[in-house]
């Protein structure tokens, strides 16, 4: 794996998301997490289908997160 192009903020914690480069923009990260949480917790599509799509997308993009 190549080195990250953007390092996390110096005060980032150990959370894999907020402790990543995304921690540079806490306001947009919070808005994204609200959208993501709505998608997963308040949706009508079953979780298996969403998880398959998520993993397939991650594999297509070669994204380890």
């Amino acid at each position: 794996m190549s080195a990250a192009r953007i390092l996390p903020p110096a005060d980032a914690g150990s959370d894999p998301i907020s402790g990543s480069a995304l921690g540079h923009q806490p306001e947009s990260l919070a808005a994204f997490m609200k959208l993501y949480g709505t998608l997963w917790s308040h949706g009508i599509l079953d979780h298996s289908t969403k998880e398959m799509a998520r993993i397939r997308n991650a594999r297509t993009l070669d994204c380890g997160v």
Partner: protein
Amino acid sequence: MTWLPETAPGANPLERVFGLRPNLFEAWRGFAQIFWEKRLLDPVLLELVRLRVAQMHEARFPLASRRPEARAAGLDEAKLAELEHWWRSPSFTEAERACLRFAEQFVLDAKGMSDEQARPVIAALGAKGAVALVEALAIFDGFGRFCRMLEIEPEDR
């Protein structure tokens, strides 16, 4: 016009489709708006990449709109008329060119992004700005695909 068999009440084609899932629509709008409301990036730059991504998807709905924040900041139609061939126009700054190149690679093949493409963006925007740009591109790219897939198109006036 969308091929969906059912639509929601709404003032425009987007509201009538995305309104089928109102909680998702509200959360999406909150995310999409924050880049403009909080000025996470220069509004002219943001509008240029938004429209360039829409051009690549040939997504007529986002192409038909203009962000007032960008217009207020000085972006005019003469410059936008050159956006489709930005690389041969002198109207675009070096930072804009770097971000447009980055945006195009993002849409075409994000995992193929090279250090040579990323470095000038980080140099121009800093880490905070580069993160905001990538997040904004995710919104614009996803929205373009969403509009194309669901055939959300501007209404003829």
